[in-house]
């Protein structure tokens, strides 16, 4: 294990060098966060399909429990139970539109992970940086439990637990626990915990800051101890259910419609119904859940005792418990929506629950149709200050300060951007498949073959994987 220990130290040092300007030391946060002995325990695996490129290279890396699909080069890195999902990478010949530019993609895009340590992180989508179209790099970066690196090349950065960086290139940044950033580009910034920041310069700037004291009950993270709070407890309580799907090689298939895709590494508990064109990704957890036509449950989603009427997006890491969702309800990244058996949560059709929203109620609560919802909501009064009819939000032209929300710019532009994104997600996931046209992940990700790879079991190299190149 000597080599793995040296690799860990090397990654911490390189990240610290990048973060010196912010005076941020990663070491106390990550030391013992995952004991290195864990890296020997779990196999890594990769998917093979005729629909995705296969080009995987692993050198001097530890990959325990991680999953790879598509094209990825991993060097001098530790990936622990991390999903590298390359089903949305750009292909050679694609044309990338950026501002007034139409930029041809000269070769298949690939993930390029170097000198990084990713813990239970999802890496997905494609690089939105016009300067690095074919290389989605993650370099000198450390991410912790249930972080999302989504379409966001990263250099010299640290992501706290449940942090999401979405469609944003970041350099030398700290993204705090449960923070969401979608701003295109950031550098040398320390974004505090519980920050939800969505910005398109010249169009809109949305900033919500969770009240930290209340947020800490749900998720908090400090040096020297693992993440804590209701959300991590909720996930940990269901960890055992995933052991079976990872340990058993030949699981009995669960029947789903031919147009739907249920990943064999998802957990499906009794009384679950999966409709047509539904996508259920790996590490999703469904229990007494009904997913109507075109709905999806992405990685690290939990849907429990809930009904989704159809064409619902449940983005990476979102949790929906004891809830009724109308058609076309969008639930953003890492949101935590929890009703109770005797006081359920209802969200009306066409509503948008912004990323990293927490709704946790002890009285029945109804979000009316076509509403925008954000922040931390436990009461009707919270809902009133943290939501607005989409038609009213669209009328904002200038600024709004409401509760912990600061918004500047055009509300209509903000809503339009979300609507466009939601439509794109549904389209990419195959929600609109008509039996012949409009195929998406739900149709293309069926019948994936999975192969396992394993690390050195002991000795100086214990936990590291030998150099492996996997190509067609």
């Amino acid at each position: 294990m000597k080599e793995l220990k040296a690799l860990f130290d090397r990654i911490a040092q390189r990240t610290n060098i990048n973060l010196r300007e912010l005076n941020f030391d990663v070491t106390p946060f990550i030391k013992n966060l995952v004991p290195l002995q864990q890296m020997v325990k779990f196999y890594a695996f990769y998917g093979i399909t005729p629909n995705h490129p296969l080009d995987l290279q692993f050198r001097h890396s530890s990959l325990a429990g991680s999953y790879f699909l598509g094209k990825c080069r991993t060097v001098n890195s530790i990936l622990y139970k991390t999903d590298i999902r390359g089903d949305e990478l750009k292909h050679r010949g694609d044309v990338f539109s950026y501002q007034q530019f139409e930029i041809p993609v000269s070769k298949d895009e690939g993930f390029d992970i170097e000198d990084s340590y990713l813990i239970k992180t999802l890496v997905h989508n494609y690089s939105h940086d016009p300067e690095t179209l074919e290389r989605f790099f993650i370099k000198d970066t450390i991410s912790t439990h249930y972080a999302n690196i989504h379409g966001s090349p990263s250099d010299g950065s640290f992501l706290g637990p449940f942090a999401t960086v979405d469609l944003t290139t970041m350099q030398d940044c700290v993204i705090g626990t449960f923070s969401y950033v979608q701003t295109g580009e950031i550098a040398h910034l320390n974004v505090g915990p519980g920050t939800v920041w969505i910005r398109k310069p010249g169009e809109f700037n949305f900033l919500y800051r969770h009240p930290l004291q209340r947020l800490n009950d749900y998720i908090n993270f400090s040096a020297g101890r693992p993440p804590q709070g209701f959300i991590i407890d909720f996930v940990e309580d269901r960890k055992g259910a995933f052991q079976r799907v990872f340990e058993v090689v030949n699981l009995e298939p669960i029947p789903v419609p031919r147009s739907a895709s249920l990943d064999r590494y998802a957990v499906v508990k009794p009384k679950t119904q999966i409709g047509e064109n539904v996508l259920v990704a790996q590490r999703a957890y469904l229990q007494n859940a009904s997913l109507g036509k075109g709905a999806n449950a992405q990685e690290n989603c939990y849907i429990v005792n809930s009904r989704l009427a159809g064409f619902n997006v449940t983005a990476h890491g979102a949790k929906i418990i004891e809830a009724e969702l109308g058609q076309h309800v969008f639930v953003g990244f890492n949101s935590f929506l929890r009703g109770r058996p005797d006081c359920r949560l209802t969200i009306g059709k066409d509503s948008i629950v912004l990323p990293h929203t927490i709704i946790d109620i002890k009285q029945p609560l109804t979000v009316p149709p076509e509403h925008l919802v954000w922040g931390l909501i436990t009461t009707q009064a919270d809902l009133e200050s943290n939501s607005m009819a989409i038609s009213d939000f669209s009328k904002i032209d200038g600024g709004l300060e409401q509760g912990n929300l600061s918004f500047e710019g055009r509300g209509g532009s903000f809503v339009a951007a979300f609507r466009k994104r939601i439509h794109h997600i549904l389209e990419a996931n195959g929600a609109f498949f008509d039996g012949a046209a409009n195929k998406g992940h739900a149709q293309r990700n069926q019948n994936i073959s999975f192969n396992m790879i394993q690390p050195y079991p002991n000795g100086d190299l214990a936990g590291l994987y030998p150099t492996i190149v996997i190509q067609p």
Partner: protein
Amino acid sequence: MTYYRVKELMVPLAEYATVPAGSSLLEAMLALEKAQAEFDHAKYRHRGVLILDKNKKVIGKLGQLDVLRALEPKEDYTDDIRNLHQFGFTSKYIQNVRKQRRLKGAPLKDLCRKAATLKVEDFMQAPSEGEFIDEEASLELAILQLVMGDHHLSLLVTRDQAIVGVLRMTDVFGAVFHAAKECEITIQ
């Protein structure tokens, strides 16, 4: 032409408004008023109060802006507003947020009550590098220090490490003006 030294231009410490550490803002303002009344109005227009420790040593200065800042509602200056710049919000938006919060905040009479409770040492400016000038220094050196340094409004005048007075920009300007008039007479 007259040769000026700093000690001839400064306001001596004994004539300057001073309060001991531990005084309230209100006491500082009263000391300022008293100094203004006791000394020649035309010569001295006091704009600050010096804070003295128990050994009568100057430990800080409280200007008019410091008093206004102290009385401002703190929510106008909280990190969440200050940080909006970091998140790309425009100055216009931030100014508007401040205005909105001010309108919702406490009226002026409530703010003034605070003056009796706030302590001067929490808002004073401690002397810093470049703020001192020797009493024997020339007018030219004083001008240089005011113009090029970080302390444009006044300097603390020292004699053997002890602060003995305050040299204000207005005193320096008065001397320069006087010197300029002398030049004009000579040219004619």
